[in-house]
């Protein structure tokens, strides 16, 4: 945003602060979203140094697309009807599910139902914790933190027993935890991660969908998943993954 020359480049919004998905590290960007974005960009005809990465915090994603600040967004962006009123999606490129992250040695939690009387951490403003409390465990105590790292730290030190959010994010956390945390591995919702684009841009959606199909077919998708969840025995929910990208093609 700070005056860098952006002509002839593609601007992609990602998260900068989610290890495993989108994370800024030593001036480069790593994570599953980043890998998918790079692949798509390549298929669209942009080399890696023709990508301008922009931070797309959750609450600003729609606005960034509408203003034309970015050309597309890959930032754990779930496809919902509400959002489709403002923007269009391509994809999905991944189907995540809400899951739980627990301490490795803690065998007492094997699903959301086990959380009664336990303590659960989620980030401020997300609804995932509320879902657990409403649907699975009414006795759970909730703690809100500004970021997942804080939640994970709290989990480390024992003041909470589980962290909840999408499994791929949890897997990223677990992979950075030096083997001290594990993902439970029983996702209990489905989140279809899409590529956010400007509303009504069906041409771009088709191109992106084709790129995603290619990515799944040539094995890069598999590699990207396993690269970014190294050190955990996480596998994406096979019932839905890899997904069939068909969003946004009809205007």
């Amino acid at each position, binding site marked *: *945003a700070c005056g860098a020359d952006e002509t002839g480049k593609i601007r992609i919004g990602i998260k*900068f*602060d989610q*290890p495993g998905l989108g*994370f*800024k*590290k*030593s*001036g480069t960007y790593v994570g599953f979203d980043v890998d998918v974005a790079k692949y798509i960009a390549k298929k669209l005809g942009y080399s890696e140094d023709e990508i301008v990465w922009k*931070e797309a*915090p959750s*609450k*600003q994603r729609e*606005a960034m697309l*509408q*203003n034309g*600040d970015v050309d597309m967004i890959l930032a754990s962006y779930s496809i919902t009807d509400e959002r489709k009123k403002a923007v269009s999606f391509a994809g999905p490129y991944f189907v995540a599910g809400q899951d739980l992250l627990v301490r490795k040695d803690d065998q007492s939690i094997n699903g959301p139902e086990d959380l009664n009387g336990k303590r659960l951490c989620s980030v401020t403003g997300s609804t995932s914790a509320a879902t657990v409390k409403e649907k699975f465990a009414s006795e759970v105590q909730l703690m809100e933190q*500004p*970021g*997942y*790292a*804080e939640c*994970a*730290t709290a989990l*480390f*030190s*024992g003041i909470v027993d589980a962290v909840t959010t999408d499994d791929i994010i949890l897997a990223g*956390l677990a992979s*950075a*935890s*030096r083997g001290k945390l594990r993902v439970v591995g029983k996702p209990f919702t489905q989140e279809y991660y899409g590529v956010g684009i400007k509303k009504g841009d069906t041409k771009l959606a088709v191109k992106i969908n084709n790129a995603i199909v290619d990515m799944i077919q040539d094995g890069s998708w598999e590699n990207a998943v396993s690269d970014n969840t190294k050190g955990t025995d996480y596998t994406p929910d096979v019932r839905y993954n890899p997904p069939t990208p068909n969003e946004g093609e009809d205007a």
Partner: protein
Amino acid sequence: MADTSNSVLFDAPGPKGRRTIRIANWVAGIVFAVVLVLILMRLHNPPDGENQLSWELWKPALEREAWTDFYLPGLWMTVKATVLAVVGAVAFGLVFGVGRLLPNTLLRGISAIIVEFCRAVPVLLLMIFFWRWFAFAGLPDPSYWAVVLALVLYNGSVVAELVRSGVGNLPGGQREASLALGLTETQSLVQIEVPQAVYAMLPAAVTQLVVVLKDTALGSIIMYTDLLQESRRLGSMYFNILQTLVMAAVIYFIACWLLSRLAEWLPERMQQRTAAPAEPEPLAPIAAGDASNVNQIAVAKEVEELPFGGAPRKYHVHHRGTNASIRNWRRTRYEQGYDVEHPETEEQHDRGAGKPGTPQAPDPKLSSREHEHSDHGTVFKRGDNIGGGRTSLGAKPKI
């Protein structure tokens, strides 16, 4: 501010006193050391979780990459917001501070309402509101502008009050002298009073800078990637968020501390250019429109300590100038309780009761206080009651 708090309470100790102090000193020192060690031990070996002192956790928080990728960019964002907010706040403050001094009632009233409103609303609320609003409105960088604007509004209102109390703290003579030379009221305000108020307020404005710097950290709540946010991110990579936050805290501390020192260094230099007291503590008046509490604090400033901590000798100042209240001089003093009775009734009372030969002081209290009269050349001019007759909101008597 001269710190007399110690000498005011305690006599110079004798030999016995010195021994007691020495023992207490050791005891207290040891107690604090023990507490510190206990905390460190707890961190070293917590009941659950990791040893927070291990090098494994500290190294990623200290190494080169942490600085180049996280702390320094974060600090830059923090500084960027701080500087712009300060510039904005000073502009805002000058406009509305002077606005509150203008002869025009309407402008004065509007300025007063804006300033009081901005001072009362928590900065965090302002930030959240602007952030969401700008995001919905589709502005670029909403969190940056939200941080800056919220800080401008709040700190600008403080600066406005500093300007106002700076002008009010000027001895009335400055204004009178310019009027007597044939300058108009507005010329006097622009040429003489406001520049001096600015010099006087500068140290306090630097202190306010510390507040701005600290408050930028609220930006992390609205996802502004300032120093605090960046160190959080760094921490989420290695799960050493405590360590990275400690580093952030250290950086904040050093920056704020340096600014505080600057604020303390400034007054001496600024004092040469203003007749109002230049002090590092922002003496922004508290309540809606009333600036008069400044004078209670000002009393302390008259006590200037000698180099070796002994007792200063000459601090009796019987006359203080005040600019803002010059037109309401007597009423304000009356309200503030200096005159229990009206001077006239009292004079009669005095005369009636006065015995022959009792040295008759010609109405003591009033006359001796009105005129600036200083002991031996050092002209102390202190604000007595600020804003007395010039503000619409709070100028009415408080009771």
